[in-house]
């Protein structure tokens, strides 16, 4: 106990300690650095971009060869350059959504979350930063992919009934809508990963929400279907980038709003769990 005399209780560490401080911008910078320091990020984003462009081009080529040969497949009948070129969105959303799940759930499965939350014990800034960083990256990749797919694909179908240019009414909105949709799906992935804290769980729920539930809805009575179906995340999202809308679908603006609500709901759940439960 002799070492515990009064003077020793004053911390004797150097008086000129640097004044570090956690700020929102710094947490963003940290999450940005974390995202790009993993090889899986580059691979998955590359896959997302590849799916978006490659499947769009394949669809456009199929359409062109079928119109050339004269007997057009039924499901191609109402195709436009936009719908053909954005055919890959369905696949790209999986890549970006899964990467979103990995951004958060991956921290839990690897234990990184302990280091992360020890550095930012207020916790919520971590979730917001991850959502912003990855949402913007997914938005950028999605928008880039949509434009590249359209610019290349519209060239392929330029001398067919589906031909369209960027200046055609609604095309620009559709392409930007597709980018925004993929950005929001990325954020939903981030939220689901944080909510479920498991990569497998997060991916399952994501796939179910985007791909399985729309199919299951067809089991409901028809009158219910018309009310519920347009508001599902995938269908609301589709309204954002579809060029033409049938009577039951939401308008692009309404679809964006509905998807934004789904995203906010998922984020709210994730925030609640992050703030309230032990890490």
């Amino acid at each position, binding site marked *: 106990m002799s070492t515990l005399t009064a003077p020793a209780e004053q911390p004797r560490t150097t008086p000129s300690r640097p*004044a*570090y401080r956690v700020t929102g911008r710094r947490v963003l910078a940290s999450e940005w650095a974390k995202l790009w320091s993993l090889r899986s990020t580059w691979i998955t984003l590359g896959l997302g971009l590849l799916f978006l462009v490659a499947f769009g081009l394949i669809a456009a080529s199929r359409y062109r060869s079928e119109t050339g040969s004269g007997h057009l497949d039924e499901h191609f009948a109402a195709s436009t350059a936009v719908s053909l070129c954005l055919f890959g969105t369905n696949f790209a959303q999986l890549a970006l959504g899964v990467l979103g799940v990995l951004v958060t759930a991956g921290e839990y499965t690897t234990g990184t979350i*302990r280091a992360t939350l020890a550095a930012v014990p207020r916790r919520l800034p971590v979730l917001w930063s991850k959502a912003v960083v990855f949402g913007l990256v997914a938005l950028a990749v999605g928008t880039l992919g949509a434009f590249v797919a359209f610019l290349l694909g519209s060239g392929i179908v330029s001398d067919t009934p589906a031909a369209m240019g960027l200046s055609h009414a609604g095309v620009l909105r559709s392409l930007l809508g597709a980018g925004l949709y993929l950005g929001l799906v990325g954020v939903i992935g981030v939220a689901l990963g944080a909510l479920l804290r498991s990569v497998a769980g997060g991916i399952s729920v994501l796939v179910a929400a985007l791909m399985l539930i729309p199919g299951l809805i067809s089991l409901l009575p028809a009158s219910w279907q018309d009310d519920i179906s347009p508001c599902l995340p995938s269908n609301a999202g589709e309204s954002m980038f579809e060029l033409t809308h049938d009577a039951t679908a939401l308008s692009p603006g309404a679809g964006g709003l509905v998807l934004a609500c789904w995203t906010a709901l998922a984020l709210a759940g994730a925030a609640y769990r992050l703030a309230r439960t032990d890490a």
Partner: protein
Amino acid sequence: MIEARRLTKRYGEKTAVDGLDFVVRPGTVTGFLGPNGAGKSTTMRMIVGLDAPTSGSVTVNGRPYARHRAPLQEVGALLEAKSVHPGRSAYQHLRALALTHGIPGRRVEEVIGLAGLDGVAKKRAGAFSLGMGQRLGIAAALLGDPRTVMLDEPVNGLDPEGVLWIRTLLKGLADEGRTVFVSSHLMSEMALVADHLIVVGRGRLLADTTVADLVREAGGDTVKVVTQDPARLREVLAGPGVDVTGRIGSQELQVTGLSAREIGLKAAEHGIALFELSARSVSLEEAFMDLTRDAVEYHGSTTAIDALGRPA
């Protein structure tokens, strides 16, 4: 400075930490000792806010950890060793942590050097051995140049050189006036580095003491004397604080409260012949096991416990 007040954590039926009160002071190494499952890790997780206490509170340098502007500058913690994404390099991991606080890149390089990770800093952490992972965890703990350093079982998985490095490091940090709080289930390891001990078992505080006091309370240092005339020796040795025991008819006595040297001198002074005079220290390990005997979570057979009693 870490202060816990009635700190309690329950998981459903099970109470992991049960009303702990303790203070960890700066300038010394404080050992946090207890058998497996005693609640050491849970307590440490509550100190840095990873787990919320069911009741009670714990503060670091006067405030709850989460209320500090620069938490990493207050407490550097090593909890479980592998808190790193296996796909990220040691350098990238530390840099991401540094960025949250605006800690400059040169400090990242510094702690990498300090932890002896220069050669492997750019390699993926997934390829790290347990020992290297531990060193990375310690580098992360020192990143913010914290006033309090808290390490959970830091020597686990380290080679002898690494163990020595940790000991020197901890003592150095304490000498700089920092608060150093280290958990272990190995008394022998603690005895080498810690000045102060907080002993827990089944979530409860068993002792808040110094290494020397712990030994004294657990039976102290006994001296075995074999003499020709036990009765006379008893008379000669009698005094305040001295306790002499021995069986009637036996030449052997157990003496506490006097050193072997003092006994020898007194016996010589009075011309009493001694056949044997040997000091028998209660080992720290025995003292610790006496203290925690009832609090051991997972009882093995007695032989198993004895075998574990002398760690490498």
